[in-house]
């Protein structure tokens, strides 16, 4: 599933009038690609996730997933957010199967459960199947949230800063979980983040958005290694890449000054 964002402009209605957030944004993401989108705070990154998932329609321009124009939500999309938004009254396994209750209504509970268990094993939480979310740590909740976003085998996974609220080490653990999931499952991924190291480590393409209204400012390939390791982040090649991206963010931040 390749994703094409073509000349998309979007504006919101606010009390102060129309607020343009995206302007002539064009991004192309190849099939099975992993694209990270970074940019200054409030530049409209989250708007992109809502547009690609079909929750809102762009004011101008269009978005295509495998050449099909998106006008409404697609069941082939999975989403995870900074807030894991787990349902506190359901145990881990029942939280994960929630999307299946919407998109695969005919599936039996055991089938749903076995789908969910496969993912739980991948993220290393198989023994927490029957726990309630309130009994899990922040990192564990986010793992469950990732499982939920993938349980219906979506072709596009949209991650809106899912690791932003985690401590540094938990975050790195989760990055590796993400690598594992990406290797095992077949999906195209869009990651919104503020963390440049995260973007470089996880994605094979990093896009820097300009300040609001956001458009494409910088686009770089980051497959510096076939199998990325945390230690790679400290190599001179990656340091240079990070410095370039940091510079680009600065330029984006000063756009409106």
């Amino acid at each position: 599933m390749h994703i094409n964002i073509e000349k998309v402009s979007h504006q919101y209605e606010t009390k102060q009038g129309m607020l343009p957030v995206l302007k002539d944004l064009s991004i192309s993401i190849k099939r099975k690609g992993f694209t990270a989108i970074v940019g200054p705070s409030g530049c409209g990154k989250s708007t992109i996730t809502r547009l690609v998932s079909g929750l809102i329609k762009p004011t101008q321009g269009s978005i295509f997933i495998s050449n099909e124009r998106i006008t409404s939500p697609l069941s082939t999309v999975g989403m995870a957010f900074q807030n894991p938004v787990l349902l506190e009254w359901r145990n881990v396994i029942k939280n994960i199967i929630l999307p299946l209750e919407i998109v695969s209504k005919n599936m039996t509970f055991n089938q749903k459960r076995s789908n969910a268990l496969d993912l739980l094993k991948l993220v290393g939480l198989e023994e927490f199947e029957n726990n309630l979310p309130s009994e899990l740590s922040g990192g564990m909740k986010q793992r469950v949230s990732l499982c939920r976003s993938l349980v219906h085998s979506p072709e596009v996974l949209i991650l809106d800063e899912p690791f932003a609220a985690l401590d540094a080490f938990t975050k790195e653990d989760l990055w590796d979980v993400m690598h594992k999931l990406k290797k095992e499952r077949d999906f195209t991924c869009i990651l919104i983040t503020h963390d440049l190291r995260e973007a470089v480590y996880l994605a094979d393409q990093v896009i820097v958005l300009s300040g609001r209204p956001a458009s494409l400012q910088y686009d770089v390939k980051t497959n510096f290694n076939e199998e990325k390791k945390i230690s790679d982040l400290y190599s001179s090649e990656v340091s240079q890449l990070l410095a370039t991206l940091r510079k680009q963010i600065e330029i984006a931040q000063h756009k409106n000054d």
Partner: protein
Amino acid sequence: MIRINNFIIPLFSLIIFCLLWELLVWYNNWPNYKMASPSDLWPAFWKFKHLFLIYGWETFWRTVVGLILSVLVGLSLGILMGFSKTIRIGLYPILVGFNAIPKATVVPVIALIFVGMHNMNTIIIVILISFFPICVSISIGLSTLEREYEDILLSLGANKFEIFYKIALPKTLPEFFGALKVSTTLAFIGTNLMEIIEPHGKGLGHLFDSGKISADYPLMFAVLITLAVMGIFLYYIVVYLENIFAGWAIRK
């Protein structure tokens, strides 16, 4: 151990309360027309035990029926107000204004509209007095649902109804039970308002009124204590239901 404590501790605090009460009356040497003591109550109960059973049951079933109906009214209004901002801002002033009116003044009005229909009159007053907390808590719970909760289902093409019964409704249950506890105690006030203000020979309110007329003060106190006991009983039924349906929200 926790289960035993849940029973022993409230019982213990009740006994202490009664002892202090007895002590207060004894120390001040109050006659029982000023303040009856717990030891005066049992004889009063025993003397009128048939009346307590009959009237107590009348009060109890009307309160429970009224409460169930007020849950239905409160839920429906709360759901409407939770989902539609127009309905919410349209209904709030009316509901708040209505709730601010002392219900004692509404009793004669209701009694005049439905002359002689005592059960219905009582139940209507119970509904009027108890639906408000439920309605407000449900509407707030539904209207403050975080956007991400909706998004995880909306992005899969779920409809409004699926979001409501899979997420919004269960998420609002703890608030609902909190409000139901308030409404439960209010409901008894509603029943007795009708029974005391519009005497028609029914319910514990009537028994209270006869105690007043015959200057039988221990009887009046015994009625009040019976009401308190019934209130506590109903409250624990709500707690029991809360444990079943919203036990996940209770910190252990």
